[in-house]
């Protein structure tokens, strides 16, 4: 495959600039791969084949390595996320305080298991291995806001209210 296949970004989208800047900051060195993937995920919300191919050619890194890194780390997602995201912390303190019951409740009520998104693309459920707010266990994180120290009934009420508010 010629290295110059994607000299230009795949589309005239300002978000590609952010990715280009990340690579430029590291002088397009292959070591910048993880930093670049972070920038790409921040810009697009996930990493698709087109993005990874572009990064691969710009950093002169085999596509297999880009894919390997993107799939090795939990933080990178190859699927688009829903409009809203509920993160459930499953760190040890949250586990001891019963966060598995919140995951079970999400499965029963929304048919979601961690890593999946509802068919209408409104809600993604993710499992986080410890956000570090263990004294607030059990912790749930609707759209980035930490909510802690809630019993199961309180937590599910909060989730329901949050979803009806943002809908």
């Amino acid at each position, binding site marked *: 495959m010629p290295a110059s296949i994607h000299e230009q970004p795949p589309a005239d989208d300002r978000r590609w600039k952010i990715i280009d800047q990340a690579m430029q900051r590291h002088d397009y060195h292959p070591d910048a*791969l993880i930093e670049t993937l972070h920038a790409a995920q921040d810009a697009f919300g996930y990493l698709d084949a087109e993005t990874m191919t572009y990064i691969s050619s710009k950093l002169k890194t085999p596509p297999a*390595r880009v894919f390997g890194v993107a799939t090795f780390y*939990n933080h990178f997602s190859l699927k688009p996320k829903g409009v809203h995201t509920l993160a459930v912390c499953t760190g040890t303190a949250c*586990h001891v305080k019963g966060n598995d019951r919140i995951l079970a409740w999400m499965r029963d009520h929304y048919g979601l298991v961690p890593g999946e998104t509802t068919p209408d693309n409104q809600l993604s459920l993710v499992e986080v291995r410890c956000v570090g707010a*263990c*004294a607030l*266990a059990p912790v749930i994180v609707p759209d980035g806001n930490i*909510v802690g120290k809630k019993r199961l009934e309180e937590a599910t009420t909060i989730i329901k209210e949050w979803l009806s508010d943002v809908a």
Partner: protein
Amino acid sequence: MWREELNRCADERRQYLDGFTHRILVCAGLGCPGNEEIIAALQRVIAEKGLGDRVLVRKVGCMGLCALGPVVLIQPGEISYQTVRPEDAGEIIACLGQEPVRRLLLPPDLPFFARQHKNVLALSGRIDPDSIDDYLAVGGYSAALTAINEMRPSDIIRCLQESGLRGRGGAGYPTGLKWSTVAKAAGNKKYLVCNADEGDPGAFMDRSVLESTPHAVLEGMVIAAYAVGANTGYIYVRAEYPLAVQRLKRAIREAERLHLLGHAICGSNFDLSIQIRLGAGAFVCGEETALIESIEGRRGIPRPRPPYPAEKGLWGYSTLINNVETYANVPKIIERGPQWFAALGTDKSKGTKVFALTGKINHAGLIEVPMGMSLREIVFDIGGGIPGGHAFKAIQTGGPSGGCIPAAHLDTPVSYESLSALGSIMGSGGMIVIDETSSMIDIVQYFMQFSMDESCGKCVPCRVGTAQIHRLLSTFQEAKATEADLAQLEMLCDLVKNASLCGLGQSAPNPVLSTLRYFRQEYLDRIAVPAPVQEDEQ
């Protein structure tokens, strides 16, 4: 000249702060959600009452007692308020200089505060993490200046060796010895790395230190880099800690602005640039060689050791890797001398240690105690015991790499040696209290699931072994296990522990082994079919 300039910044800041009759410090850590609303509410009341020139509201780092947060501290007087809500702002302001608000008051003699010995956390919850002037005002960076201007690298290393400081990431390797290995390593190019990839679920010491006193970590890194001769440093921090990353970035920018980082630090001929590298959610990257792979932009797969990173680390160059808390200990050791540090703690474990005390405990939060304090004092005095009238069952230390310590050993003093003698480890400092309502098999299976998911897959004992141990644990979980399963479980634990390449695999069986040792009955109770032939001696 630089010292005068910094002293001037510090003096100005002190004068500014002293100009207020009252200062209201609000914890702005991750563990106190809603602090922004509280700060806004307080500022609104102050503006309404026209007290702007007499009362100052400041955001500060973590005060430790996260279970009763958000916590607000009034100075002077050291009055602490618990579980403050924005609605309380009016009352708090009205009571300034008078009787404190009784219903919010935290008792000043609470053992949670009284029994701690704060060293790394001394400034946490006292200064604004986003203000370098605040850090300078309490004497920050003076240890770095002393080190660079008045000490030889070998003096610093000797100082660290005499202090007895050991790595706070968990393994407890003597810090001074590590520094001297890197200092002696051949080659002019060396790297410095701060391991802030706190992947242990249930631990948040590093997050809190980075969020509360980022400059203390940077100062420790400056001293370390000068001592070993490194000019480039990396802080490898979890992407799951956005607030810590944001505060660190700001701290680096501010330190560069005052020439405390960058080219020719404070007029010396010593350069150090520090960059942040974001982790991406891989527990194994806390292992130093996997971390190096990750900084180099690859999958976090450990390399065999030796060669250790001190000889061959980043890009093949000698690299010093220390944990956040280790670096944060350094400025005080330089400032107060190695004897001061060595006088704290036990014979072989010196100083103080920060722990994240969580789980089934009343006063969950971040604590710092001298090494050698008993687990009982930590759980029942500082932690305030178990809520809901339940009984203590075990304390889990060291996360997925550690073990569960039962009530019978609660009087054990905390040190690297004593915890490992009990089949657990000091680890980075996570302590999760488990009460009698939890099944140990469930806890152990939780950890094994974690280790299995996080195994990088490079070596077979870890990749296959953790999965098989997890499968065996499931049979116990479902009470369908046999005697043969128990024997196989023990055999596999031994195999994974001894045959894995890196610390992840070598320590993954620890939760199983420690519970087999102290809670064996729970395993035996779940064996469905008794062994038909042989007599079991136990």
